[in-house]
């Protein structure tokens, strides 16, 4: 079975993981591995083999910085 890694700032509970699976049904086909990464500040990053879903504060901040820089 393929693996998907969910990075979070703390260890996610089963309820939280189940709610995620509800929102992202394709996660059912994967073996979910949860890793703690404090650098995310808050939120989650879901890393598939071929894509990444960035729901973290850190990711948002990076996007904002990028947009601010591009506008100049």
């Amino acid at each position, binding site marked *: 079975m393929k693996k998907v890694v969910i990075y979070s700032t703390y260890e996610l509970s089963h309820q939280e993981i189940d709610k995620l699976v509800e929102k992202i049904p*394709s996660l059912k086909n994967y073996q979910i591995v949860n890793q703690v990464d404090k650098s995310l500040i808050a*939120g*989650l990053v879901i890393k598939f083999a071929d894509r990444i879903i960035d729901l973290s504060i850190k990711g948002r901040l990076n996007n904002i910085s990028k947009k601010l820089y591009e506008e100049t």
Partner: protein
Amino acid sequence: MSGLGIDIKLIIAQIINFFVFFLIFRRYLAKPFAKYLDEEERREQLKEKSEKILKEEEDRIKKEIEKHKKKLEIDYQKALEKMKTQVKDQREKLISQAQKEAEEIIIKAKEIERRERDQLEKETVRRAVELASMILTKALADFLDDKDQKNINRRIISHLKSIN
């Protein structure tokens, strides 16, 4: 007559003597001398004539020389004027070219300055954004506790639209 002391024979002899002398004088002295005087006069006239011709020739040559001098002077002045005009044209051309090159250099310098200024502005903005991002990251990391993080995760998950 002899009582007066006049000798007729002597007088006749002297007269004959005089005529003979006159004839000899005329033949051998007067004529050559006259001839010599004529010759001298002729030479003198020839000399005067030659001198006159020479003088005329000298005057003519002087006039020619003067004429050539004037012509040379005129040609020289013309050439000098022509050269002055050419130099002036060349100078103006060089000045115009130098001005054009100076303008091009100024335009290029302004363009480089503009580009560098833009680059500097972008760099300044990038660093400012980077710094702001760093400060905000640090502030949020310090500010958000576990409870806040859980709340944020809950809100993220609840607001998440279905993804396939």
